[in-house]
């Protein structure tokens, strides 16, 4: 197992290097120039040239790349062209809201989706199953921002139960956190619930036809135990896979939810950086996202060995 973990960690190095080269090249090929954004509308071409030189953007691309890579190897993700703040500080400022939103969304979604999926599988072909699957299709097809604005309209503006936007840290203001995170969690969780419900239903349905389930029922096990102890446990590998992939997607994919609810997370940071062509932030964030994906995938692989003793590395 330890060898496996070491091997997986070592394999991140070439992956990260490829990601670094690709993202660096793509950004330099994309139209847009941070110097012109910084200079503002009234600046002349001469002023922009001076700013470009002061930022080192006039250097040959390979020189810029080498400088960046050397900094990365020293653990320095660079400095934002606009704010002059270290990229690591900016990521640090935005990490907590995104992690908290991801965490609440995963907890909420899994708590809703897994029982729903098991129930749908148990009642396969019935009206309950169809209703759950209909809800699942709706969850996939309903645009996130529409649901977000509908919730804001109802619970923020009409009933005035919840704030329409913002984020409070659970460490300084737990009640504020609870009130600001409810609507974003529901909004972001819808697609995730739909996804996990469908996978759970399919996996459990497959397992329910197995001999050991028939045996458990023949032994007189109550249905709840059959479903959750025997069926769900054996269907857990694909469910864990989809939950893991979902976590990785949520961290990078919460952009719309963060925008609608004004949550200062990583998603908004990357969008703002792209709009302004703040290269160091974009590069740094994509590296962080890639690293997160790799680590989460590794954790999923490790989880397999716990969920299914037959799996060994």
């Amino acid at each position, binding site marked *: 197992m330890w060898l496996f973990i070491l091997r997986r960690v070592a394999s991140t190095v070439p992956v990260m290097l490829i990601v670094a080269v690709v993202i660096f090249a793509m950004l330099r090929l994309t139209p847009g120039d941070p110097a012109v954004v910084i200079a503002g509308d009234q600046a*002349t071409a001469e002023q922009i040239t001076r*700013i470009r030189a002061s930022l080192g953007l006039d250097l040959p691309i390979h020189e810029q790349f080498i400088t960046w890579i050397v900094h990365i190897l020293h653990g320095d993700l660079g400095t934002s062209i606009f704010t002059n703040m270290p990229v690591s500080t900016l990521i640090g400022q935005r990490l907590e809201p995104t992690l908290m939103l991801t965490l609440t969304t995963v907890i909420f979604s899994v708590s809703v989706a897994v029982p729903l999926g098991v129930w749908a599988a148990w009642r396969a072909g019935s009206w309950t199953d169809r209703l759950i699957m209909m809800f699942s299709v709706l969850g996939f097809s309903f645009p996130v921002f529409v649901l977000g604005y509908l919730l804001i309209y109802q619970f923020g503006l009409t009933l005035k139960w919840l704030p329409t936007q913002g984020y409070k840290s659970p460490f300084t203001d737990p009640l504020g956190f609870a009130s600001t995170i409810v609507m974003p969690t529901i909004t972001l969780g819808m697609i995730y619930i739909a996804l996990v419900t469908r996978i759970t239903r399919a996996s459990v349905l497959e397992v329910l036809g197995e001999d050991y389930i028939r045996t458990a029922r023949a032994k007189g096990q109550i249905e709840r135990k059959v479903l959750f102890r025997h069926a769900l446990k054996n269907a857990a590998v694909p469910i864990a896979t989809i939950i893991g992939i979902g976590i990785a997607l949520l961290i990078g994919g919460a952009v719309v939810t963060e925008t609608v609810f004004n949550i200062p997370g990583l998603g908004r940071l990357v969008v703002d950086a792209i709009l302004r062509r703040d290269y160091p932030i974009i590069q740094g964030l994509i590296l962080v996202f890639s690293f997160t994906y790799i680590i989460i995938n590794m954790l999923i692989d490790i989880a397999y060995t716990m969920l299914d003793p037959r799996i060994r590395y």
Partner: protein
Amino acid sequence: MTLSRRDILAGTAATAAAATLPAGAVKAQAKRNVLKVVPHANLQILDPIWTTGYISRNHGYMIYDTLFALDDNLKPQPQMVENLDVSSDRLKYTMTLRDGLAWHDGTDVTAEDCVASLQRWGKRDGMGQRLFAVTDKLEADGKKTITLTLKRPYGVVLDSIGKISSNVPFMMPKRVAETPADKQIEDTTGSGPFMFNKANWKPGNLAIYEKFKAYNPRKEAVSSAAGGKIAKVDRVEWYTMDANTAMNALMSGEIDYWEQVTPDLIDLVKKAPGVKVENLDPTGNMGWARFNHLVAPTNNPMVRQAIMKACNQEDFLKTAIGNPEYYKVCKSIYPCGTTYETDAGYVNQNVADAKTLLQQSGYKGEELVILQPTDHPVLNPFCQVMAEQLRAIGMNVKLQAMDWSTVLQRRASKDPTDKGGWNMFCTWWIGGDTVNPLTGVGFGATGEKGWFGWANDEQAVKLQDEFANAANPADAKKAATALQERLYANGHYVNMGMFFVPVGYRDNVRGMIRSPVQFFWNMEVV
């Protein structure tokens, strides 16, 4: 005094009720000294001299002060300066600083600080460069006196030092102002009515300004950028958010003030209880379609004239803004309602004449490239209307869709259109930037050294100089009018009219200042 049993019961009930008030209500009481604002953009750059971005300029006004400032009539008035003495030959300006001016770190503002600040500004700003070109000496004479000696009389010294929009000559401590002009400052110490809370700055989310309690405001009433800058709240918080989110936050009372209500949301915001929408900007914004004077077919003056004749200002404004309350047909290159407003030389729409002129110009259906920023709510429709109006006179228009950042980059290209070049792009200036022939960078016509589009017209440059050197207001007005005629005749740009972006605020916010620039002193939440 005696208390009845009923009084005691009522008092007890009131106390109990207060104790059970929801947290939000208690917070609302404690919040009175905080003004929560959604500004027009995300504050990313803290150096208002390094960039011309309007959001950095507004940040500058929060924390810095100026020697002079424009009043309601756009006339320069002393701000940090107590006395001004101009020699009879108009060559020597002696400015004495007011008593009680201090930096946020508690040290005194000195003339040396101001000299260094002006020098740094003079390296970046167009008007500053012009002023320093005629400056013989700028020096500190003791702790409080600044002496500016000119090589020759210059008519707009105070208009330059007191200019209201980017780059504003903000005063900074000498140690900060000595930062090279091409490098961004890191120290945000100023002497303005608010202090920047840099430790809690979260770019893209929150910027906090604390009241500078030692600020010594002028005694005069506030008048645009001039007069007494009294901070009436302890703290101003700028939140960055998307337009729809800002609207919801304003309607629910989570923010107090939204600096720019986008045109498509004005009607919704207006209908919300407890919210007001108002235009506070007397000079509005001026819409421009800029020609590239270097690249065919717009390098041909007759083609540019034909395009100008094809355009109807009201069509642009109706499409992009919609509500006539927020736009104005304005034939002047200077904002209508300001000193130099004139209709002189304006090219009215005449489609038949435009077609004839286009034919005479030798235009043979060459592609005309317009850079279209699809992410901009006003400029995007401007470009679309422009394309339709030009197609109507038989031009082969290619609208190239892109985001605003890409427009900013692409417009720097001097290449032909088939190699990434362009012929026209739409933009806008705040009225404060175009109030006279020198404030508007776009009015310049110095060719390839000048602003994008690179108009080259010696006559226009001469008229700008005439304005700068005018000995009296009548001469200045004459030069400004002549410049407008010249710019229209030469097909400098298409004037797309004047539009206003209103502010939205809760009805308990008071003390807003009517000005081309957003200021937050004098404002309070009652």
